[in-house]
């Protein structure tokens, strides 16, 4: 029976590694040639580097292809063919979808897609959802704003492709969404980790509904690293009584990775559809061996309207040494996306990834889900402050909680913090991407 089939594509997902690599090389050549022939932006980039399609014969040749930065896309857009500019590879009338990046790191980048590209988005999501156990018997609730950001749009279409019944939770507020989940007995949900935690909090503390009594049995999280951070994942799973799966994707890239039902503490790269290279942050060399972190350079092997060829994603990842118990030959990235190269910062001379603070705060019983970090400078000296919330009823354990927090922060981040404890629900709440790390040194 097809519902019992473990893989969305039983051939591709179990392809021997050498065959998979050969496929990636063939497909890279094809997309490179497509970009070279159809995009003035890509052609001029490659001509300047002296690289033509026939020069791509090996992975070493691929590593030499110039990378594309988000800033380069910003520079060429808002020009003809309006508004996409010179990277558009198809006639404007073939574009059926518009999305844009969130703009958290600058001016948003526009993303055109043809209908074929949109089918491809849904196809990428079909791999994700099938691997996480979604089937046609699922009723999937999507509490997302359905706007210009791609977010869970393609998740919606991917779930439809699997045959799931999809409930769009668009403009409803959080309480109405929870009531709709209850009313329809939805079995699955997709949202950011921040919002999923916020929904659980609202249900429990403002509506008197225990989320574990609802019928949600699996949640796909994306948009933030939370579901890959063990303590955050555990909080969500405990709050909802559901399995939580991580996924990472991006507007300019596509839905490139997924955690499978075996929950291997990492995500598979869909290597049939994407080529992921990891670049050493200092040397710029490609890291092939597991256990060494670097920056992800990614190619979407089948995307046409605005190709994504060796895009510098700035995501920090590392290969896992071990294969997954699920049997997929798609490699795992250990712990998912562990940070972004533009988020990692030095405080008091120590390299700090904000996700390490999240891991500590969410691992301590008695602390709320929300926190805030502020880094500033007095004279030449960095200061780092951490604001946390005490859960109601935990006040008499404050000293113990503080001691554990200080110890864990020192172990995990090698830093001392100015700690402050706040009443529950007094720190900011977020619905989409949270901004809990504020580096005021960059402002002044």
């Amino acid at each position, binding site marked *: 029976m097809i519902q019992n089939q473990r893989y969305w594509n039983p051939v591709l997902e179990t392809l021997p590694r050498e065959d998979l690599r050969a*496929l990636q090389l063939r497909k890279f050549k094809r997309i490179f040639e497509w970009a070279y022939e159809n995009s003035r932006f890509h052609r001029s980039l490659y001509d300047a580097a002296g690289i033509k399609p026939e020069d791509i014969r090996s992975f070493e040749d691929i590593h030499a292809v110039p990378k594309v930065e988000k800033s380069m896309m910003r520079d060429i857009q808002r020009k003809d063919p309006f508004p996409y500019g010179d990277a558009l590879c198809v006639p404007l009338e073939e574009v059926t979808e518009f999305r844009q990046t969130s703009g958290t790191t600058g001016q948003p980048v526009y993303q055109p897609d043809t*209908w*074929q590209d*949109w*089918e*491809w988005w849904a*196809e990428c999501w079909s791999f994700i959802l099938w691997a996480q156990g979604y089937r046609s018997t699922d009723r999937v609730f999507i509490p997302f704003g359905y706007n210009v950001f791609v977010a869970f749009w393609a998740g919606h279409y991917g779930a439809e492709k699997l045959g799931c019944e999809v409930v769009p939770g668009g403009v409803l507020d959080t309480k109405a969404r929870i009531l709709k989940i209850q009313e329809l007995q939805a079995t699955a949900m997709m949202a950011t980790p921040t919002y999923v935690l916020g929904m659980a909090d609202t249900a429990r503390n403002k509506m008197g509904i225990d989320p574990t009594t609802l019928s949600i049995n699996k949640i796909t999280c994306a948009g933030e690293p939370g579901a890959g951070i063990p303590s955050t994942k555990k909080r969500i799973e405990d709050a909802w009584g559901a399995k939580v799966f991580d996924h990472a994707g991006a507007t300019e890239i596509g839905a490139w990775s997924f955690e499978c039902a075996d929950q291997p503490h990492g995500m598979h790269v869909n290597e*049939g559809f994407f080529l992921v290279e990891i670049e050493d942050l200092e040397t710029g060399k490609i890291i092939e061996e597991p256990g060494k972190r670097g920056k992800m350079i990614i190619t979407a092997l089948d995307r046409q309207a605005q190709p994504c060829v060796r895009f510098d994603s700035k995501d920090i990842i590392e290969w896992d040494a071990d294969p997954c118990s699920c049997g997929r030959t798609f490699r795992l990235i250990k712990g998912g996306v562990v940070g972004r190269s533009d988020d990692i910062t030095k405080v008091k001379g120590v390299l700090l990834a904000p996700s390490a603070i999240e891991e500590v705060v969410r691992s301590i019983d008695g602390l709320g889900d929300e926190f805030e970090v502020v880094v500033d400078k007095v004279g030449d000296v960095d200061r780092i402050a951490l604001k946390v919330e005490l859960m109601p009823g935990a006040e008499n354990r404050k000293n113990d909680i503080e001691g554990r927090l200080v110890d864990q922060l020192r172990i995990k981040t090698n830093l001392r913090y100015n700690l402050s404890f706040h009443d529950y629900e007094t720190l900011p709440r977020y619905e989409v991407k949270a901004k809990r790390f504020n580096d005021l040194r960059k402002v002044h």
Partner: protein
Amino acid sequence: MSETDLTKIGEKVLRLKETAKDLDGLSNDFPAVRRNIQRIMASIKMIEINTLDLIADE
């Protein structure tokens, strides 16, 4: 699934693609056919990526 099965699927996908192209060619003045066949061709492309690409020797 054996390579033979994949090849069989691939052959039928190619036939499907040819049929879709033929229909596209016949639909110059027929929006209801043209736009639906465009969507079908995008779906066929997804089957192609999932099957034919795996056996193609370019």
